[in-house]
């Protein structure tokens, strides 16, 4: 049984009469200790998926799913209180912008001890010792002094390390990292990513790594899910997906990577934009931007076909031999 299992998750915003689709019929399963990458452009529904999982979608947003279970327990049927107990303890999350994700009125130590106190309790002294230990684990130099520091005194990379320390404070079994390196300087990105993966390996956590950077995923993830406009376009093992992309969108993303464009005069790009709230095409969502689009793609929306872990949502997959009808 997978650690996390989501079936048919949909998230809508807007009014019930005029709903705006953010995530549409998404299935996702993550095993214990597994690293799953979720890739897509801005607005593809990656972040919304993780927020829905955490129960952080507020009205007017609406979440519906056939199943959403963690460790065999149904998250949707749970009382709010019980679900909160899971958050921060068994499921933790780190966000894109670490600087604004820390409360400017509280010190690093306040943040850590509060989380530890809420979930595990203990004397002030013990909590402080644990907090110090956590800062050491995320490789923050001079942790005693940092404990008393306020967020505005930290750099972006340091803040993200604090966020990671907060996330791993209660030994979570699933860590959701939503674009953990996007807001950081390029030189710091690799360090933070390395830290995340080391902690994942050491602790055997499952890691859900959300990013728009395929390069990050290629080196780290066991499995990959490609999202576009709220839909899953393709899933597969990292190896398969990067060597034999089935979906034209995955292929386009890969060919837009700078390292695949060495020697070319212009970086390959994907023309057009992700469809907006009120202009979702009737057929395949990618059709207006797809170089292989045919008449059927304009009129009929393809279903997700194939057997996990390899699935693709396309009428005309590129390496069709991999898919069993």
């Amino acid at each position: 049984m997978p650690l996390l299992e989501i079936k048919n998750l949909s998230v809508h915003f807007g009014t019930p009469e005029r709903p705006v689709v953010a995530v549409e019929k998404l299935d996702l399963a993550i095993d214990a200790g597994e690293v799953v990458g979720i890739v897509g452009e801005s607005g593809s529904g990656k972040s919304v998926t993780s927020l829905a999982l955490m129960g952080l979608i507020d009205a007017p947003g609406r979440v519906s799913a056939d199943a959403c279970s963690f460790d065999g327990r149904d998250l949707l049927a749970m009382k709010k209180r019980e679900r909160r107990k899971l958050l921060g303890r068994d499921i933790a999350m780190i966000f894109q912008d670490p600087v604004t994700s820390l409360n400017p009125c509280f010190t690093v130590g306040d943040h850590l001890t509060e989380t530890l106190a809420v979930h595990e309790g203990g004397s002030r002294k013990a909590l402080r010792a644990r907090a110090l230990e956590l800062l050491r684990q995320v490789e923050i130099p001079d942790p005693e002094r940092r404990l008393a520091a306020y967020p505005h005194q930290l750099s972006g990379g340091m803040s993200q390390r604090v966020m990671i320390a907060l996330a791993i404070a209660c030994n979570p079994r699933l860590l959701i990292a939503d674009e953990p390196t996007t807001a950081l300087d390029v030189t710091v990105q690799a360090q933070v990513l390395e830290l995340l993966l080391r902690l994942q390996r050491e602790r055997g956590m499952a890691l859900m790594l959300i990013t728009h950077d395929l390069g990050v995923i290629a080196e780290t993830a066991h499995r990959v899910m490609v999202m576009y406009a709220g839909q899953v376009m393709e899933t597969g093992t990292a190896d398969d997906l990067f060597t034999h992309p089935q979906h034209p969108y995955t292929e386009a993303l890969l060919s837009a990577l700078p390292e695949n464009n060495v020697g070319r005069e212009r970086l390959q790009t994907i023309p057009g934009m992700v469809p907006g709230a009120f202009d979702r095409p009737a057929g395949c969502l990618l059709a207006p931007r797809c170089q292989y689009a045919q008449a059927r793609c304009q009129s009929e929306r393809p279903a997700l076909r194939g057997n996990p872990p390899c699935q693709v949502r396309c009428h005309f997959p590129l390496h069709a031999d991999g898919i069993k009808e």
Partner: protein
Amino acid sequence: MIAFLLRRLGVLIPTFIGITLLVFALIRLIPGDPVEAMSGERGMEASRHAELLKEFGLDRPLPVQYADYVYKAVKGDLGRSIVTQEPVMREFLDRFPATFELALCAIIFAVVIGIPAGILAAFKRNSVIDYGVMSVSLAGYSMPIFWWALLLILFFSVQLGWTPVSGRIAIEYDPQVVTGMMLVDTLLEGDFEAFRSALSHLILPTIALGTIPLATLARMTRSAMLEVLGEDYVRAARARGLSPLRVVGRHALRNALIPVITVIGLQVGTLLAGAILTETIFSWPGIGKWMVEAIHRRDYPVVQGGILMTATIVILVNLIVDVCYGIVNPRIRH
């Protein structure tokens, strides 16, 4: 923090100098003859005029007069009232505790009701409670308080007979003046009957004076809370499994209160100004009533002194607010 305070002081000192200039100029800007205005005598003989000119020191060059005025003011000498011949400073100090007591009660009233109302409205956004709080506070914000005070008197004093119409305490009580604040002085004497009398005299003026600050605070707290509730760190706090009470009461409130403290400080000015109206209506023997009477009597030294002292208090309160702002906001403290 110290640098921050020094910077604030650097702005406040020129402001204070500006106010002394303004107050100094006041008597010289009055159309007509300052001697006649200050002595209260009309159509006097030339010799008497020259005598008074000398007495008020108006025969000297303006810069000398100004330096003299500031020098005396800093020493606490604000001249004498034309009407009573009492030193202005003494009259001010006699009346200030009454205004201070009223303003303090009013701000407590406003904070105790306004801030929770604002938090509640923000927390229950777009609910009946939210609309209710916002409508009432808009009405309070738009209320002519002199009329509101009359309505309060009409209803609670005249119709129901619950509270006295005016004054600070019933005539039969005469507590010894220690602090000048009736509530404190009666308690110091241990006379609970007198304390009750003083309290009942305070209720209506407090409500009248506190209404506008209350409405302002409720509106400000709500908007500050709403802004903070949309911040990333609130979402991150929720993602760590903290309860809504903890998220709102600890993480959001702490940040939302930073701008609210500034608003409370700014309201002190409104309170002192509002005291002019409230004190006039309730015959409250404070500085507001004193100054209005002085204007009607053309008692210019009193008007000058009153303005100078009120402005000084407002400036000092602003400085205290800055310090509080620095204490609650770590970005300034460090």
